[in-house]
């Protein structure tokens, strides 16, 4: 079943951010745009590349009022150990959520129970806590932070202006369109 417009459930997890441990709850992620970025496990090869790519665009996400929460089924202590040993992970500024009990991965439907790992799922949640965009990749299929940024911007645009707009691609010298009469509802 689709998760679009599903409200995220209550949660309380421990996280690692810039050398500190902190608690992240549902209440804390409401009021701004959020990206929950699941990956299988710390200390793997694809993961630092994806997280590094996300970090390269982190400032742009921040500018549009969107926080990134990376999530794996490791503890926050393992996140710290990874940050301490990996140059790529060491420069990450966004909160890295620890989800060893699978609370988050289960509610977003990305937990592979047999392996205790999360699929590569990305969820864009609006300030009201509703899922607006998501994609789930099988293990090993990487994601693109630039594309994710575009999706968040598109979600924000629709959130602000509604979806009833037309793109305006004017070309200089274009001919005036022939009138098409349809007065239903107007007169």
């Amino acid at each position, binding site marked *: 079943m689709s998760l679009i417009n599903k409200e995220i459930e209550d949660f309380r997890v421990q996280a690692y951010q810039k050398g500190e441990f902190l608690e992240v709850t549902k209440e804390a992620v409401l009021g701004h745009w959020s990206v929950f970025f699941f990956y299988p496990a710390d200390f793997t090869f694809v993961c630092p590349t994806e997280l590094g790519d996300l970090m390269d665009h982190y400032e742009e996400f921040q500018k549009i009022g969107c926080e990134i929460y990376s999530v794996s089924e490791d503890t926050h202590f393992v996140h710290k150990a990874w940050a301490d040993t990996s140059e790529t992970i060491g420069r990450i500024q966004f909160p890295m959520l620890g989800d060893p009990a699978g609370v988050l991965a289960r509610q977003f439907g990305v937990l592979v129970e047999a392996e205790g790992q999360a699929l590569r799922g990305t969820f864009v949640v609006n300030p009201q806590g509703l899922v607006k965009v998501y994609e789930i990749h099988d293990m090993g299929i990487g994601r693109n932070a630039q594309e994710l940024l575009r999706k968040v911007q598109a979600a924000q645009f629709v959130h*602000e*202006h*509604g*979806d*009833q*707009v*037309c*793109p*305006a691609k*004017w070309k*200089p010298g*274009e001919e*005036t*369109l*022939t*009138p*098409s*009469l*349809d*007065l239903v*509802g*107007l*007169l």
Partner: protein
Amino acid sequence: MTKSMFGEETPMIDLSTISSRSDLLDETLKGQLRQVLARMKQPVTLKAVVDMENQSSREMAAFLNVFSSLSDQLSLELYLPQEAGQVPELDVTYLPVTGLYQDGQYKRVAFHGIPGGKEINSFVAAVGNLAGAGKGVGFLLKKKIDKIRHKANLKICVSLSCHHCPGVVAACQQIALLNPNVEAEMIDARLYEDLVSRYQIERVPFIIVNDHDTYMGNKTAEDIADLLIY
């Protein structure tokens, strides 16, 4: 500027010099429009400022000349830019501009550009509503529109192929016809690159309120009235 025998200022452009054919109005459409305009209960005057050096203005002049011939309740006055002093209420920044008048009064509804494509519908709706041919608005909406107490100039930027745009233009113009504090101007943004770049218009409908606040997307008359009540 010329004076009539009654001392009134008269338009400088002699309508007999304007083409009586418009590529935008074929015989089928003219027939349909005649039927709609037959419902006009009161006369409406269209006054336009056109720069005859400019293709769009020439196209609009011909369109208006043909359109106004479709009903006895319609009359037309055309002015050159240097004669625009005779219609000071019209904003001549974006030409051609056409305003709707009744009993000599500007009714705060104007069109910049040519109402071709989908926008023919907002143009006909505005003329029809002003002429008493419309279905009017409901009591609650009328009450809400009456509550708009601050002056509001609405510029509704459209593209002629946008199917959301005529409804928003018609809603804004319906409000303007009912509340003297509101003026609603449709703008075919395709013709005015400086406007598009100034407001970075990428999507339409795009409403500019008092040349400052901007709103995008489809909106009902209720939504628009809500924006103007403060």
